[in-house]
């Protein structure tokens, strides 16, 4: 187990809950509350996985995802998109931009943890 996870959301309470969940599952957690900070942290820290909110001021999740996938050095970073807008088009857009998974808010906590675990297990094996 173990691994580095970046939590990105502009809602402090959601960041808090995700941070708690991921730490409890045994990961190291870093947080960011907007897209610009998130991207610079990803480049610096090269986390194994990013929990990325879509609707954020300054730079939204799609743009972050696109930037990450455009950088070959960051190809090992897994991305799970989180969004409060659950329409299929948004999901498709996220997947098309190279997200590894897509979760609609509000989410079931255990399910999310499972998804994270399976993604990271898969990549480490």
């Amino acid at each position: 187990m173990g691994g580095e996870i970046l939590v990105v959301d502009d809602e402090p309470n959601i960041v808090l809950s995700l941070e708690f969940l991921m730490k409890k599952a045994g990961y190291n957690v870093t947080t960011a509350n907007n897209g610009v900070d998130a991207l610079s942290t990803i480049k610096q820290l090269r986390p194994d996985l990013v929990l990325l909110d879509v609707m954020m001021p300054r730079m939204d999740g799609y743009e972050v995802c696109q930037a990450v996938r455009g950088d070959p050095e960051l190809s090992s970073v897994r991305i799970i998109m989180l969004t409060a807008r659950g329409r299929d088009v948004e999901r498709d857009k996220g997947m098309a931009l190279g997200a590894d998974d897509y979760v609609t808010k509000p989410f079931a906590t255990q399910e999310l943890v499972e998804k994270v675990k399976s993604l990271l297990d898969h990549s480490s094996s």
Partner: protein
Amino acid sequence: MLSGWLMLLIAFAYLGLLFAIAFYADMRSDAGRSIISNPYIYTLSIAVYCTAWTFYGSVGRAAGSGVGFLPIYLGPTLMACLWWFVLRKIVRISKVHRITSIADFIGSRYGKSALVGGVVTVIAVVGIMPYISLQLKAIAVSSNVLLTYPQIADNAATRAIYADTALYVALALAAFTILFGTRHIDTTERHEGMVAAIAFESLIKLIAFLTVGLFVVFVLFSGPGDLFAKAATVPEVALLFSFDAMPGSYASWLSLTFLAMMAIMFLPRQFQVLVVENVNEAHIRKASWLFPLYLLLINLFVLPIAIAGLILFPQGTIDPDTFVLTLPMTESAEFLALFAFIGGLSAATGMVIVATIAISTMVCNDLVIPFLLRMRLLHREDMSGLLLAIRRGAIIAILLLGYLYFQLIGESYALVTIGLVSFAAAAQFAPPILIGIYWKGASRAGAVAGLLGGFLVWAYTLVIPGFALSGWLPQTFLEEGLFGWSWLRPYQLLGLDLFDPITHAVFWSMLVNVGLLVGVSLFANQSAIERIQATLFVDVFRQGSQTRDSRIWESTSSVAEIREILARFIGVEQAAKAFEEFALAEGQSLNDEAPAESGLVEYAERQLAGAIGAASARVMMGTVVKGEELSIEGVMKILDETSQVLEYSRQLEQKSQELEAATGKLKAANERLKELDRLKDDFVSTVSHELRTPLTSIRAFSEILRDSPEMPATQRQEFLDIIVKENERLTRLINEVLDLAKIESDSVEWEMQSTDLREAIEEALVATQQLVAESGTALHKDMTNQAVQVTVDKDRLIQVVINLISNAVKFCDGERGRIRVRVYARNGMANVEVSDNGCGIAAGEQERIFEKFHQVSDVQEGKPRGSGLGLPICRKIVEHHAGRIWVESELEKGSIFKFVLPLEGQA
């Protein structure tokens, strides 16, 4: 010595030759082998423009004013450039409608109006008098000059004699014109013989003038170099070379050029040769450069002859108008002098013949026949004889009128000025024609008003002063005006004293003519027939050449009856021939007993129009077809039916336009609906997002608490607090969404009551007391002492103020925050201000924060976020109370939210 009888003999022999040419041309024409159907003859016939005025008068004018004679020839040259567009259209219209004269043309354009045709005819008759008198004077003077040969007599000595000569000349010309022009009545009113003779005359006068010019330059002098060298030594002559000698202003050059431009097209005789006698439209193209060439040639020697005359004759002893004759006589070149006389005779007779034929046709078709029709005096069986008699009488009358003018006024004006008076009269026809063939709106009333107005101004400013100059009216009329009113001075109307008399008259008559035509047309309604004719004229190129007008004849007459009426006017043979041609063209045989179909009636009317003009033909045919004696009412009834059809189609068109407009509106409404749908979609999506966010926290923390029984109590407490807060946020959000939806759908029950606004504010302050205290912000209230009475839903208003105060708290920086609530009345409005010293709002955001779900970006961390619905709700509420809410703010300095409501009794 040229004896009188020899001269007479030669003159009559020449006229006899012309007659022979005309006779030959008519014969060829009847045989179907026209000799005039080519652009060269057409051009030469147009040169009937160059009259005795050109032949003798140009030299006279050049002797007095150098190049001052030029505008008269410059104008036509300019106009010729436009022929292919303007003249071709007029010719096409005239062919389609079988136009017989300029009066017929204008009358036809304005609803086949007999009134318009009559007015044009009267103007033409009065306007032509000076011109005819000019020709009589020229022939009389020139023959007297020759008769006194070799003595070169001066002006004064001969004056007494030629007055009588002029009368004989007038009578001789009348006889000759009658022989020429009225041998038979034609359905097209074309005169091939006349055109051939005129063309021949144009050739003769050109050759004669050139010969005299060559004689003067190369025999009297040794070449142009010699002539001009000698001229340079005489100071007065040298002056003529330069434009400094030009009399008058640029305005008078302009007006002369303009007059000549109009004259070349709209003098009745020019209209006759240019339009009525035109055989083929294509000839216009060549004529539009050949004719200017003719003008150039005939003007080539004007200046040299004038200069030679001034050098050779002592100043003032010989009238410069006779130089063309007298110069050859100095060298005893009697045959050349005779040739020059023949040239001048050609110029004069050509003009007189064509002009009188054209005008006699107009007098007959547009004055006499309509009059007889109205008076119900037409009962004779054979009309063609009567028509000829009318025309012959008209010819004699016109020439005698010309003679009368010559006797009364002829002496008061120079040759050139007399001609210009006629030009100015002809110019009156230009507006109704030129405007009429391009603007459908020009109406009959406008044309009549314009023509009459222009004509009256013309008469008042040019003809009546002539009577005064000749002593028939007191001289004071010129100097002091009618009744001694100085603003009525005929040469300075309304005090306008800038121009010479001709320019002055042209300016005012054209202004009045065009002004009335356009002005009256804009206000006068057109009748159905006017609209039809206007369309047929303006859109002539869009129609086939055999356009039929859209009338519906109620045909009750037999074919035989129609033929009979036609025969009465154009003769039995001609009528039979015309019917054969119709039957051939339509591919059907005509049964005498069968009812005449409308196509035949229209065809017959066109044939009749060729003989008696469109307006008369229309009335005539109307009566016959209706089988009544002479009922103009019958014709009017048919016209009404036509106008009903027109009205119906106009309504149809209107309906279809309305339909189109409705379709457009539907389309726009559909677009709007789509837009609204899209906005609603956005709204739902945004609401969904806003609701899911607190739900996410609540669910996440609830599950965390459930799955973490070993969690320390403090942390458990912390998470529970979050859940509670998010729950409140969710509830508030749901309430606001519902609230806004209710306001927007207008389903709110407003409990309006008279309220002192200060009380409402107090209640809001109480409600927010705790919130403010917790944040540590200082709140200061600043309320007026007097009641601020408004009629409002009090609870809603409190809601607005609470919202504004909570916003202020949110944006203030805790302990350092200052909030001020101010209430006052001003200008009939209640004013409420909530100001803070918070972070402020950027200019670009100040309006957008009142939009739904718009959140100010970069909210300070740790601050609870709003739903983005508070301010939109505030705005809805304030606007419902007929008030206004807005924000004034500066970044880092703070914001002032203001709203105003009308005070009680003010709304």
